[in-house]
């Protein structure tokens, strides 16, 4: 049952990535047309980065994309590694490590997605 749950969320996260990464690509490239580009210049200039962090919807969608992509990527990695035939104890340990590393990276990413907003207002 657990594997069914893991795999079902793997598929759901795939669809979430399709939507939100598409959105991410659109936003990053539409910026050239000045849509999310109040500061002008390159899409990766600080002003524009901070602007996007302050936009609630965009910050939210970055966090969703981060979570979905971490889950999807780590489940895929887990599947590939498991198919190479490690022992059961390694399999259990590896799963736990992936969860921990994934949550840590999710924490880092989420913090940085909203931190730029705080820094902008502080500066």
């Amino acid at each position, binding site marked *: 049952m657990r594997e069914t749950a893991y795999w079902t969320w793997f598929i759901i996260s795939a*669809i979430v990535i*399709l939507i939100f990464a598409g959105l991410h690509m659109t936003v990053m490239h539409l910026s050239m047309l000045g849509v999310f580009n109040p500061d002008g210049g390159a899409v*990766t200039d*600080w002003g524009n980065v901070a602007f996007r962090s302050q936009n609630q919807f965009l910050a939210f969608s970055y966090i969703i994309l981060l979570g979905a992509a971490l889950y999807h990527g780590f489940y895929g*990695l887990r599947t*590939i590694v498991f198919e190479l035939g490690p022992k059961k104890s390694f399999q259990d340990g590896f799963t736990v490590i992936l969860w921990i590393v994934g949550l840590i990276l999710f924490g880092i990413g989420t*913090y940085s997605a909203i931190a730029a907003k705080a820094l902008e207002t502080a500066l």
Partner: protein
Amino acid sequence: MGNKQFDNHLGIIGWLGGGRWGVERYLYILHRLTGLGILMFFLLHIFASSVRMYGPESWNVAMVLLKNPIFKLGEFFVFVAFAFHALNGIRLIFIELGLAVGKAEEPIFPYKSSLNNQKPLMMIVMVICAILILAGGYNTFFGSH
């Protein structure tokens, strides 16, 4: 008898071949390789993107580092990998949820299989993938950035 048998498992090479060298086998291998490639990029992307939490000075230093043309080329490879992985992924979602494999039918020679059912979907997916890669390549190498 008790004599030693010979282990004839193919190992990782078996992921590449061992059957009829069908297209679907190669799509499976490419899906794995692009997945691993995207994962490696993604982990680097999280760290690069997280520099923003240190403020504008650090951010600008990072951005200057990333202007190196090797990263531009890398971005193209990531795009190609993502385009393939996403489109083949869409195909796999249809197949693995049982939507593109057809119903069970009594086998009558010459046998058809779910491979025939998913061929049209595979063709569409590959064509769109080729278009996206060409568009991305044009944008990367000939577009203005």
